């Protein structure tokens, strides 16, 4: 057996057996201080090897794990208890945290235009998708929230950059606070006025 084959088998076995997704560092340590460069190459080979199979090797939040291929879902779902469905409030809060993180409860509420019950954040924290991430250094020092690696894993995201549409939302200013957007619009309108006719 060649050396790369032997490394591939070891990585395969370790990731299969592990109860948690593993970082490259964890894998390297576990396999007896393997060179990390070689490890990454082995992971790349395995991703390719499994890409057409019923199970895939995936990276989420810098951690690697095997999971079933998405197109096999219909075969596996029926015996499973289907996921409890999140309320609309909770999904919105989750999205706001994910796209704006870190974000305080007041900031969440200002986007939603409605108070957020403590229970909603609790549900997201209990699911392991959201965690407190310190405090904002403004008067009152409100707690700010961010998503977890488990969030990325659950939603199949390698990193927050993979959040659907985040680039476009950022480019169109949708992630900026209303006040900032308002200032920008007014400034633009002002300059438009100045080179157009003013009607007053």
């Amino acid at each position, binding site marked *: 057996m060649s050396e790369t084959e032997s490394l591939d088998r070891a990585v395969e076995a370790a990731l299969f057996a592990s109860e948690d997704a593993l970082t490259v560092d964890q894998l390297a340590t576990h396999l007896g201080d393997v060179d990390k460069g070689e490890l990454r190459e082995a992971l790349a080979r395995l991703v390719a090897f499994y890409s057409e199979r019923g199970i895939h090797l995936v990276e989420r939040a810098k951690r690697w794990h095997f999971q079933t291929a*998405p197109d096999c*879902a219909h075969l596996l779902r029926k015996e499973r208890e289907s996921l409890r469905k999140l309320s609309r*409030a*909770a999904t919105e809060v989750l999205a706001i945290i994910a796209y704006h993180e870190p974000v305080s409860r007041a900031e969440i509420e200002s986007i939603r235009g409605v108070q957020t019950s403590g229970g909603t954040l609790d549900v997201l924290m209990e699911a392991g998708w959201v965690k407190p991430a310190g405090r904002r250094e403004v008067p009152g020092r409100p707690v700010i929230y961010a998503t977890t690696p488990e969030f990325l894993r659950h939603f199949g995201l390698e990193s927050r950059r993979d959040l659907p549409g985040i680039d476009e939302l950022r480019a169109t200013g949708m992630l900026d606070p209303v006040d900032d957007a308002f200032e920008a619009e007014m400034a633009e309108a002002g300059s438009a006025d100045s080179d157009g006719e003013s009607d007053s």
Partner: protein
Amino acid sequence: MIDLPEGGTVADFGDLDGDGGDWQGIAASGGRDETALNLSLDGWEGPLDLLLELARKQKVDLRQISILDLVDQYLEFIDGAEQLPLEIAADYLVMAAWLAYLKSAMLLPKDEQEDPSPEELALRLHLRLQRLGAMREAASRLMARDRVGRDVFLRGAPEGLRIDRSIAWQVDWYDLVRAYGQVKARNSPAFHTVRDRQVMTLESALDRVSGMLGMSLDWVELREFLPPGADARLRKSAMASSFVAALELARTGRAELAQDDIFGPLRLRRVRASA
């Protein structure tokens, strides 16, 4: 009941049946406002939420909605919703009042408008609706991803990786020997001996000083009465005893004392017998 069409692009949000919990299908124990709203407003979460849904009904890009139309639709909706419980209605009515004001302000000629202008107010509302709409869209796209436990599954029975920690105990030769020394020191019978300390008693000082005074007619420094070659501790004791002896001799009229200045040397002289 309030008659509103289903929201267009948010089919993944299932909270329109009024259970109010954060997990669909789990009995409601959720927020007070959510529960209450869902019971009476078919799941609208506050005025902004309702406005957003109304805006979507205009079936144009959110950036091009007519705020005036939106205000009309909202006011019409609130008019139709007669049996709103008062505590829920409050937020909606505040918004209704504000929108009514906004509408009237927008209908005024420009030069009669107050500051901030109704256009600015409308722009802010517009921006808020856009942002809420964007997040709602993002949430539904997020929920539609291949999710672990719904679309993809992890290994059902992983063997688990184990790290067995064994302990390598550390102790060096010095620790070992020292520990033994301490055990022995701690538990061997301890002998406490009080060292024989040389002191000069007052009696011997009296004898010594009066004896020595007899041998001289001149002033003698107190220091001279101390035993020569004595160690420091004996000297201290002898000094103290000799001083007291000198005082005693002076009191009984057998010696005179003199000291030229404070802390200066103390001198003694025998008192000659007057007889």
